[in-house]
């Protein structure tokens, strides 16, 4: 079967058995479509379109949304296929609808003119007409939405959004796309940050085909970003005729400027389209491919270009000023006018034209309005992205705002030529030799004396050319052309001589271009340092000049001299790239920073200022401010840790501030860094204060009496002689034995059974036990801190975080021992076998169960205190405490050994000190054991659980993307567990006391937030500066409040809306914590159920019992912290304030007690 027969014949007889066969293969539309796209080759698909255009299954896919059915857009209509098939199909569809496309192109030209002339309402009417004729499109939605925003018609915008919502129906995807594309024009000030954030959000959240589509459809166009057009076509062929046509044009332009694209599809598309439409992209690519030599050379265009080439800038501005509204609308005119206007006074223009030209001048000059103007023009480009004129503007901005390397430069230049309507000599850049010759011949015939054409055809020999043509050219321009010609002829020394002069001329644009070429010439001749000096000196005058240079080439040359160089220009040049272009040379910057210091024989940047004497103050200040930053210094071995890096940076900031450099910004940086250091120290203080027991109670007058009485009794007894007593004899003998063998430190390991103690020994043991009990279990004792600062949420939360972050644990079903399915991983690992899926579900449930059991074991069994003394050891049920690590049990021998250490002359204080030292020694033994068990046993058990899960799932699901993702997730969880476990281990060291003299309450809040891993909204009437000794207690208090909100709300953390309000009125400081919670059916009943905690609050007996434990103990601990540890008088109210929110309010009447004395008047 040959395809080249006429359509009339095709319809009259069944000449398409293949298509007929497919059409009759099923009565199911999608199946038939799938078969058609599968069974036909690309060309057959193209040919089939005309045949199928009225077929019930294909009509909609070919007529493409003619009926304004927005809700059908992006619905699956045409099956996915290869790029080639999609392109051929699209060309078939465009051919069938060629009249509509022609109408669209005419209207598009009118729309551009209307926008540039500010005829916005007429423009909206044109778009309405377009919708009526061709059907609704994303293209038209974008333009209409942008115009409504541009004219500030908010009501119309809202009405339009509502209309789009209605048209979208149930199709939420198109509704969302329509919302975004119709809202592209935003406030210029926020445009760039918004656009960046939106793009990174999309990149982070999506991948694959959807990511491609969203990048194509919604984000600011980046001509250098590769896009997968196969995937884009698969979506766009299910949109509208206009959108499909635009997709073809975008693809043609993209594929022409990117290597590796299927040439046959492009040639086919251009050949077909060039016969149907006059469009610059199509005709330019056709010329480029040698398919067409049909150029129209306009005398008006050439006279404009020649005027500019001669340097007659005023004439250009005048002509543009005098042009009628429908004249000189091509982007090239705007570019030439703006370039001219940088040399002479700007033309007087009104409306959008005037704003655009003004902004182009700012960008070309890189003046103080550069950023605003760039943002404005980029916003316009994004808003009117579908219009060719704005694509050309966008490409111009790409050249001006980015430091492009050679290949990127070439790509952008070629794209600009492809989009351009001007048949200027610039076209020669994209034509092959044969086509170029035809172009020159035809152009010479049409415009015989064109200066631009002469320069273009002689550009490589210009320096050896003497022609009358050249005498017309303005002096600086001519020098630039000759310099460029010498550079292209590789006559670098001659080029350098000309360019060195030109790089300091008054003509801003020529100066920029000459400087850039000069850097290139220096690089080519191996004059690395000269290149860096030229680049840096220019850029330090105005940092935006960076975009005039190929900074990658500059960094590459800097890299070659970094190891040996003592010049500050090396790190400064690379830093300019890192700050303004990208992070590609960050490693080299780190290295060059280090080598600059080492080669100059200094350790730190401010060690010896004489190393800077040969440089201007400007460059030294730049180096210190922008190159000596923590990210650059982080690998430098003379700065051993982050604290040293921060200290170094602070000293640099202070030095610069003293010289009035970037004062405001650097003072803020110093504050931020100092705050970070204080937080670090405070955090460390908190971490190091978890293991503590307040021993001051043994010395304070009020609390020591009970021990003194016992001590006095012991002293009286000890004055008598007990040598004849059996116990004394035995204990003394063993003591001598232990002492001789240097085993006294092991005294706690020996219990001597059936040895009744005499009164003296018995009294000492009792004294010891009393002190031990208060040391271990007192209100400010060891167990209180262990419970509040480790067991109460901290440890479980920290160990759980790594598996929660990777969603490896699943939730329990309420009131059941079963687990909910882990939808995240079950979705990723899905296979078509229910039994296997059930086993995977069980593996995750089992993992959760065992992981929680391990945490429970550590928290509730290991990290407990045991103090089973000899007298009760046989009575006790030891099961519950058998694994307790903190052992404060006292035996008769240990008591005796300690007694022997107390000199007969010692007073109460000396004796207590000895006992407390001994208690801390016992604690240290337990702490060592705790660190060991956590580091080895706990780590191994938790890692083993992860390993088992990984192995089990891998065996069940086999090698799959899901299993690979799980492997990655477990890898991350393992790394995080190791870090978190190290953090937990670091808690088990003895407190070193207060290192922070005073602190802002924000620091305590931040540490509590970090510990609870929760977001908290903070409202504060003023700052509160507190005494350093209170830091740990305030953190404890806040942590308990936050943790209670998390654990009692029964809501995920993200839904908690936790807020903390701090205010003071008439010397009463009010702390209010509010959070959302799972809705209670009856607020009164729910509040009544809390009555126990209200009545128990402050009850000494209950309080003692509860502060040592976990679970339902939060309010008891709050009381203990406020009343006993901080000595704060207060009242508390708590309860449900609505059915789904809970509040705790604490009013403190003597808050000044904890304030830093300097802040006492707050």
């Amino acid at each position, binding site marked *: 079967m040959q395809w080249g027969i006429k359509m009339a014949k095709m319809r009259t007889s069944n000449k398409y058995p293949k298509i007929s066969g497919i059409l009759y293969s099923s009565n199911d539309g999608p199946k038939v479509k799938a078969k058609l796209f599968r069974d036909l080759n690309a060309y057959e698909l193209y040919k089939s379109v005309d045949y199928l255009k009225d077929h019930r299954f294909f009509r909609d896919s070919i007529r493409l949304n003619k009926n304004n059915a927005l809700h059908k857009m992006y619905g699956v209509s045409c099956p996915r296929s290869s790029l080639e098939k999609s392109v051929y199909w699209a060309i078939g569809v465009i051919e069938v609808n060629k009249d509509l496309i022609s109408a669209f192109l005419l209207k598009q030209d009118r729309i551009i003119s209307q926008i540039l002339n500010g005829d916005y309402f007429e423009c909206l009417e044109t778009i309405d007409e377009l919708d009526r004729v061709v059907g609704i499109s994303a293209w038209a939605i974008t333009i209409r939405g942008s115009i409504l925003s541009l004219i500030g018609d908010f009501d119309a915008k809202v009405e339009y959004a509502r209309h789009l919502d209605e048209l979208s129906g149930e199709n939420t995807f198109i509704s969302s796309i329509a919302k975004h594309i119709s809202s592209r024009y935003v406030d210029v000030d926020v445009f760039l940050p918004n656009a960046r954030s939106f793009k990174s959000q999309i990149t*982070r959240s999506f991948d694959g085909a959807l990511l491609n589509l969203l990048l194509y459809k919604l984000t600011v166009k980046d001509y250098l970003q590769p896009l997968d057009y196969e995937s884009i076509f698969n979506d766009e062929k299910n949109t509208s005729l206009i959108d499909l046509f635009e997709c073809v044009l975008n693809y043609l332009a993209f594929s022409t400027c990117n290597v590796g694209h299927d040439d046959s599809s492009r040639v086919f598309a251009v050949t077909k389209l060039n016969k149907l439409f006059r469009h610059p992209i199509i005709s330019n690519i056709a010329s480029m491919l040698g398919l067409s030599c049909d150029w129209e050379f306009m005398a008006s265009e050439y006279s404009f270009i020649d005027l500019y080439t001669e340097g007659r800038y005023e004439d250009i501005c005048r002509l543009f000023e005098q042009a009628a509204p429908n004249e000189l609308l091509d982007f090239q005119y705007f570019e030439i006018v703006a370039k001219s206007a940088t040399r002479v006074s700007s033309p007087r223009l009104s409306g959008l034209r005037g704003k655009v030209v003004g902004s182009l001048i700012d960008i070309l000059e890189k003046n103080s309005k550069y950023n605003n103007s760039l943002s404005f023009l980029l916003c316009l480009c994004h808003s009117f992205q579908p219009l060719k004129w704005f694509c050309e503007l966008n490409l111009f901005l790409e050249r001006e705002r980015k430091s492009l390397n050679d290949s990127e430069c070439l790509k952008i230049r070629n794209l600009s030529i492809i989009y351009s309507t001007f048949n200027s000599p610039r076209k020669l850049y994209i034509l092959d030799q044969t086509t170029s010759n035809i172009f020159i011949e035809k152009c010479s015939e049409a415009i015989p004396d064109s200066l631009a054409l002469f320069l273009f055809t002689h550009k490589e020999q210009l320096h050896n050319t003497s022609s009358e043509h050249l005498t017309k050219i303005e002096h600086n321009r001519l020098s630039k052309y000759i310099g460029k010609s010498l550079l292209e002829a590789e006559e670098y020394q001659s080029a350098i001589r000309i360019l060195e002069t030109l790089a300091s001329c008054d003509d801003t644009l020529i100066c920029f271009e000459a400087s850039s070429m000069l850097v290139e010439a220096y690089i080519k001749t191996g004059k690395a340092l000269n290149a860096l000096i030229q680049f840096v000196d220019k850029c330090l005058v105005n940092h935006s000049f960076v975009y005039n240079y190929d900074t990658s080439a500059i960094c590459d040359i800097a890299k070659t001299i970094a190891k040996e160089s003592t010049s500050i220009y090396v790190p400064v040049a690379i830093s300019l790239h890192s700050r303004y272009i990208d992070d590609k040379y960050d*490693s080299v910057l780190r290295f060059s920073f280090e080598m600059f210091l080492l080669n100059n024989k200094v350790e730190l940047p401010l060690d010896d200022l004489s190393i800077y004497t040969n440089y201007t103050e400007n460059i030294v200040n730049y180096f210190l401010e922008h190159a000596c930053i923590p990210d650059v210094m*982080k*690998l430098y071995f003379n700065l051993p*840790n982050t604290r040293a890096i921060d200290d170094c940076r602070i000293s640099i900031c202070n030095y610069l501030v003293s010289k009035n450099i970037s004062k405001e910004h650097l003072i803020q940086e110093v504050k931020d860094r100092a705050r970070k250091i204080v937080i670090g120290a405070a955090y460390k203080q908190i971490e190091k204060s978890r293991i503590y027991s307040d021993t001051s109670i043994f010395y304070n007058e009020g609390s020591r009496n009970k021990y003194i009485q016992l001590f006095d009794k012991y002293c009286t007894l000890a004055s008598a002689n007990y040598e004849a007593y059996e116990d004394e004899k035995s204990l003394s003998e063993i003591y001598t034995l232990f002492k001789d063998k240097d085993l006294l430190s092991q005294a706690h390991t020996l219990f001597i059974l059936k040895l009744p103690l005499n009164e003296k020994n018995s009294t000492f043991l009792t004294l010891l036990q009393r002190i031990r009990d208060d040391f271990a279990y007192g209100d400010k004792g060891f167990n209180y801190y262990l419970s509040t600062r480790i067991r109460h949420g901290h440890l479980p939360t920290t160990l759980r975080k790594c598996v929660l972050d990777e969603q490896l644990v699943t939730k329990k079903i309420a009131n059941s021992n079963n687990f909910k399915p882990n939808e995240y991983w079950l979705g990723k690992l899905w296979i078509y076998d229910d039994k296997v899926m059930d086993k995977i579900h069980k593996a995750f449930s089992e993992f959760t169960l065992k992981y929680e059991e391990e945490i429970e074991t550590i928290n509730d069994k290991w990290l407990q205190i045991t103090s089973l003394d000899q007298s009760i050891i046989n009575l006790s049920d030891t099961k519950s405490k058998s694994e307790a690590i903190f052992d404060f049990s006292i035996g008769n021998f240990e008591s005796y050994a300690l007694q022997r250490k107390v000199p007969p002359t010692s007073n109460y204080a000396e004796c207590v000190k000895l006992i407390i030292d001994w208690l801390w020694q016992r604690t240290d033994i337990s702490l060592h054991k705790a660190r060991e068990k956590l580091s080895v046993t706990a780590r191994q058990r938790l890692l083993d659980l992860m*390993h088992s899960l990984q192995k089990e799932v891998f065996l069940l699901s086999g090698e799959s993307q899901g299993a690979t993702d799980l492997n*990655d997730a477990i890898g991350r969880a393992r790394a995080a567990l190791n*870090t978190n476990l*190290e*953090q937990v281990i670091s808690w088990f060291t003895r407190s070193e006391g207060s290192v922070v003299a005073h602190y802002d309450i924000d620091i305590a809040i931040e540490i509590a937030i970090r510990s609870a891993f929760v977001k908290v909204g903070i409202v504060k009437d003023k700052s509160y500066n507190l005494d350093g000794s209170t830091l740990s207690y305030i953190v404890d208090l806040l942590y308990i409040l936050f943790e209670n909100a998390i654990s009692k709300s029964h809501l995920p953390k993200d839904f908690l809306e936790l807020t903390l309000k701090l205010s003071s009125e008439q010397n009463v400081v009010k702390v209010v914590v509010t959070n959302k919670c799972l809705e209670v059916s009856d607020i009164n009943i729910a509040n009544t159920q809390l009555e126990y905690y209200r009545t128990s609050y402050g009850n000494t007996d209950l309080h003692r019992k509860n502060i040592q434990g976990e679970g339902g103990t939060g309010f008891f601990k709050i009381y203990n912290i406020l009343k006993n540890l901080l000595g704060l008088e207060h009242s508390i109210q708590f309860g449900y304030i609505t059915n789904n929110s809970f509040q705790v309010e604490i009013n403190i009447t003597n808050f000044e007690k904890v304030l830093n004395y300097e802040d006492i008047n707050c």
Partner: protein
Amino acid sequence: MKILIVEDDYDKKKIVTNYIHEICGIGTEITERESLRSGLMELIKNNDYDYVILDMSLPNFDINEDEPGGGTPESFAGREFMEQMNLRELTCPVIILTQYSSFERGSVSLEDLRNEFSFNYSKFYIGLVYYNAVTDNWKNELAEILLSEN
């Protein structure tokens, strides 16, 4: 033989160390470092290692009580490590052993990294092995590189 392992994962480090002893002999001298900085510093001080086995994602500093999280974590610490080796003209053979199948949310594959490293660090980069604790594939690949080099 002297090998430097730069790896912050306790479990992985232990398994890899055992395996190297298994295939290269118990006499193999293995030095362990746990961060980008400490690894690099070790190599600058002692540039006589026969191999460096390098993780891709490492903390900047060794984890200790002053640097509880090891400073900023670096997803491409392996790349930075090799870039610094390149700049400092250190040429000890490097094998990357990573337990991640891709980076940057899947946009950088292991194959991309292999190509990049072969191109940029051909003087010392000798291979990238994907470590998966539940299979032994990584062992074969690592052995193949280590043993073929000897």
